[in-house]
């Protein structure tokens, strides 16, 4: 439980650092560090429900400093977390290459989803080639940053968590022993 507030702080700090990077590099090339923290939680944190809560909280934090609809990032980050948690429990995503593939694919889906939701809610222009190309660039930037962010989250989990980070063994859904995790 100690790791929950630490991870929230880490996610918010990631947003601040991301804000500084965004001033230096053009938008699609700026990695989404806050989103990568959510992915890392899904891939590495065994506490399923706390992870879902943390992802939603971090998503709302992002919504407040971004031009999105309030709840849009929260919704998509929750879905990202669920996808990552599900994938980590079904597949072996402990290696660098599988993780990179997952991060890249999830970024593409995230980008297309953001634009599609805007199109649905606001009537903005739907996704086109430019969106796909931006998502592609953003995916590459996220893949580059994924390694350090996931390692950092792992370290925090080992440091503050009362249990080992199950890197290789498939994670449970937090249903066995001791009630909800």
């Amino acid at each position: 439980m100690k790791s929950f507030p630490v991870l929230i702080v880490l996610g918010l700090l990631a947003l601040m650092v991301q804000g500084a990077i965004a001033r230096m590099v053009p938008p699609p090339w700026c990695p989404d560090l806050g989103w990568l923290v959510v992915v890392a939680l899904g891939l590495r944190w065994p506490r399923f429900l706390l992870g879902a809560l943390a992802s939603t909280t971090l998503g709302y934090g992002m919504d407040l400093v971004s031009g999105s609809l309030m709840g849009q990032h929260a919704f998509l980050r929750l879905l990202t977390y669920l996808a990552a948690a599900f994938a980590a429990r079904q597949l072996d995503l402990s290696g660098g290459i599988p993780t990179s593939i997952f991060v890249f694919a999830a970024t593409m889906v995230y980008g297309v989803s953001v634009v599609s939701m805007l199109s649905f809610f606001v009537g903005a222009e739907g996704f086109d080639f430019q969106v796909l190309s931006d998502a592609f660039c953003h995916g590459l930037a996220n893949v580059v940053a994924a390694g350090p962010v996931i390692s950092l989250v792992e370290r925090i989990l080992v440091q503050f968590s009362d249990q080992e980070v199950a890197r290789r063994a498939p994670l449970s859904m937090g249903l066995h022993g001791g009630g909800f995790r």
Partner: protein
Amino acid sequence: MGPRVMPDWLKRLGILLIVAFLILLTITSMVSDRRAIADGGRELPWWQAIVLEVAAPVQRVVSAPVDGARDFFSNYVDLIGAKAENRRLRRRIAEVESENLQFREALVTSGHLARVASMRDEIEIPLLPAEVVGIDVAPWFRSVLVDRGEEHGVRPGYPVITYDGVVGSVTATSAHAAKTMLILDRQSSIDAVVQRSRARGVVRGVGRDQLEFEFVVRESDVTTGDEIVTSGLGGMYPKGLRIGRISELRDAGGRLTKIAIVEPAVDLGRLEQVFVMLRRGPIMDLLYHSNRLEEELEDPIFVPSANKDSNVNMDEAMRNAQNGKQ
């Protein structure tokens, strides 16, 4: 007797319900936010405003070294060739001043200058300088965070500009910060006209560094190089603010409309200082709120006394507005 263990199905159901609740919560937030934005933006509740309040100064501190390094580099680059540029600009200023003098002379002789001056007094809008302290961290949105909020008189829906033209509009405010949606954002659309031919259309953000101006083909005289300005319709931006210049004409695929690519007048990638237009002038209030009671307006309608003729016109306009309302 061991501790009672919750059955597996109950735990699964609990997890499902909590996740479903979170999903429902986020969707509800989006829908209600969409409504708030459609109504002109939102003043954030205190628990959300805290994040903006903290984010603004923190973003400023975190960005300071980055901005410093970038400014140092760009200043160094700018210095190269500054002398030649300076000479060229001085020559250009002399030419423009001479032209300006001729135009002023023409205006004075035609009596237009006095009328323009009195009009300016009437529609003058207080501008609040604000500093951009953070930019949108998500690549899918184009917004900035400025260091002025409700305590400085900033409200959702207020236009944000620079000397070069339109920047965007305030979408959410806290006490000392405001989130501003840039005109480049996919959610942005502005009613606009071509300055030269007065052809009307809508300028839309498409999430890139350019804008799209969609206009009706029939009887529209639009060419490359035309300036696009705000039309004053739509209730948010005053008339005549520069939006950008047409760089390319494209066929929208339909018979009725065409699309022009517009280069924004403002360099929105390097925003530092902006101005928030604090309130609309009396004429604009009359135009925008002509269907509302005078008492409902935030500020009383001020009729300037500088020009007698304009007073008469304003009285007439107010009477017309009242009659229209009745």
